[in-house]
């Protein structure tokens, strides 16, 4: 389905090259939801933007490859890539209102996409737009079609974004923190909607989030990122039952848990800023298991179990 191999992205600033992604590899299994998890600055969004070839002008792909159904996306001419965005891979963002055009009503934005990408006539596009809005659970779709983004609430804007993303019948949906900016009761509505759509349409979803609770809620597979690398990949059950990387385990204990009085533990120190990644394993200065080999060399991927991969010299010491 979607296969990302050894993706390396760097920022170019004032003649200096600052690497941001250090060889990110993962594959999405068709019809599943994969979570890309990490704290801010670990490279989650950058990975998604690189896949979509929407990197900011200051960033560039240095090496690696992205395959969608066996076709390399990085070599496509821009015109064909534009077709892939939408029909192949669609993306929704954290700030739904910021991703909609404020000066056009919803109808114009939806029918524009439908006419351009699916070649529908005006009337047919309008009918399809209305059907899409109903599909994402918006009450009174005819009224919403006439509305401008500022007249809609955050949750409604996110539903419109999802309708837009689905307009071209994509195979893969990249959802970047789709619920973070929403109120909690609305978050739950959007999670339920995404889950229902994913199952009905057989979508493959890459969910970018910092929230392990959301991962437990909706994901099949998880990839944990730290300092521009994937440090652990596993099925969601394996990760929650037996996380192997000390960072993943730290994230688990750092969670403030619902219904518990237990104080979260946290991880000492902080995520290293871009360009100041320590040598060796990037996590070693914060790691309670770290030894001399951790500062000396970056750990290679090791297989913990079938489908469970970790990059840590000392994972065996921690799993016990």
């Amino acid at each position, binding site marked *: 389905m979607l296969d990302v191999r050894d993706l390396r992205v760097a920022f170019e600033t004032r003649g200096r090259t600052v690497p941001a992604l250090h060889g990110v590899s993962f594959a999405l299994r068709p019809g599943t939801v994969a979570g890309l998890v990490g704290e801010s600055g670990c490279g989650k969004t950058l990975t998604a933007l690189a896949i979509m070839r929407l990197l900011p002008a200051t960033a560039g792909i240095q090496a690696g490859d992205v395959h969608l159904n066996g076709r390399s996306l990085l070599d496509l001419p821009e015109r064909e890539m534009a077709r892939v965005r939408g029909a192949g891979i669609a993306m929704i963002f954290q700030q739904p209102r910021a991703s909609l055009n404020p000066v056009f009503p919803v109808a114009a934005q939806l029918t524009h996409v439908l006419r351009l990408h699916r070649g529908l006539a005006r009337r047919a596009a309008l009918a399809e737009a209305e059907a899409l809005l109903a599909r994402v659970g918006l009450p009174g779709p005819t009224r919403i079609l006439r509305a401008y983004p500022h007249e809609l609430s955050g949750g*409604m804007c996110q539903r419109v974004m999802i309708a837009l993303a689905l307009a071209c019948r994509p195979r893969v949906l990249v959802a970047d923190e789709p619920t973070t900016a929403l109120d*909690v009761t609305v978050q739950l509505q959007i999670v*339920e909607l995404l889950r229902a759509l994913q199952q009905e349409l057989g979508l493959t979803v890459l969910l970018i989030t910092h929230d392990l609770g959301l991962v437990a809620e909706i994901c099949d597979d998880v990839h944990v990122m730290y300092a521009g690398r994937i440090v652990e990949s596993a099925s969601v059950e394996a990760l929650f039952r037996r996380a192997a990387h000390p960072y993943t385990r730290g994230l688990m204990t*750092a*969670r*403030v848990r619902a219904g518990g*009085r237990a104080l*979260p533990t*946290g991880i000492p120190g902080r995520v290293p800023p871009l360009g100041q990644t320590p040598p060796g394993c990037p996590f070693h200065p914060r790691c309670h298991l770290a030894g001399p080999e951790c500062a000396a060399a970056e750990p290679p991927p090791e297989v913990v179990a079938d489908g469970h991969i970790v990059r840590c010299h000392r994972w065996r010491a921690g799993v016990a």
Partner: protein
Amino acid sequence: MLRVEGLHKRYPVRGAGSGRHALHAVDGLDLEIEAGETVGLVGESGSGKSTAGRCILRLEEPTSGLIAVDGVRLAEAREAELRLLRRRMQMVYQDPLDSLNPRMPVGRQIAEPIWLLGVASRPEAERRVYGLLELVGLPGEVARRYPHELSGGQQQRVAIARALAPEPRLLILDEPTASLDVSVQAQIVRLLVDIQSRHGLAYLLISHDLSLVGVLAHRVAVMYCGQIVEIGNTDEVFARPAHPYTQALLSATPRDAPGEQRSRVLLRGEPQAPIDPPDTCRLYARCPCAAPACLERPAHLQTFAPGRAVRCVRFLDEHGRGVVSR
């Protein structure tokens, strides 16, 4: 130590049809906090929880209501008294970078409230900075740094040190961990618990994060559209929420592990701004348990068990025999 009675904050609204309209941001809030106690004020954006916090500090002038600290009423306090009361109540904000002065070394920012509020002389204040930094787990050399040189977690520690500087009795914590990374949030939570146990401070924790409130707060007050809809001991409210809104909030908190089964209370739609709200239930249009009776009588916050009160006509009809009106 802090007593709030009938706190109202209304904002005039224009362009909502003819006549005078008002947004009832905080609509009759009653709250008490004891020394050493943490009360969580939870709600979604627009529920009035932050406005309530700002009114308590009189950063915002309340429309009406009584606020008393250690028996002294804020509204009647003269300038000198108000200064003394301000010493006793300090606030920690969500985004430390927004609340710290970018052009002043953090040591001076921590010392300033000490001598400005007359707690100690200026040289003494500057000496105390190091003790305060140590209290929040930062090395003394941080005093010479500027906020932008520090990480988010360190900045929030500085903001806490500055809030503690004038020796307050109450800290109002407005989403104190919301802008921080997960691994750093936990450090701040531990710090807050540690400081409270050592100094017997009272905390008013304003947050949308029920998990955080569950860990920190002894009692929780749930706000919806400007009103408290449920209040009680945190463990009891979390174990047996009485109000459908509390149930919905609790069921919206993420699961701890995959496969964990959870009953779901899903609300329709989104919160409406409380402009000229009715005195009947404000959740009615979104509530999965709404019944005709809900529109017949005003919804009052009523005690139904020791230390627990709820604002739900249906719940009180079903469970609330011998209820005491507040």
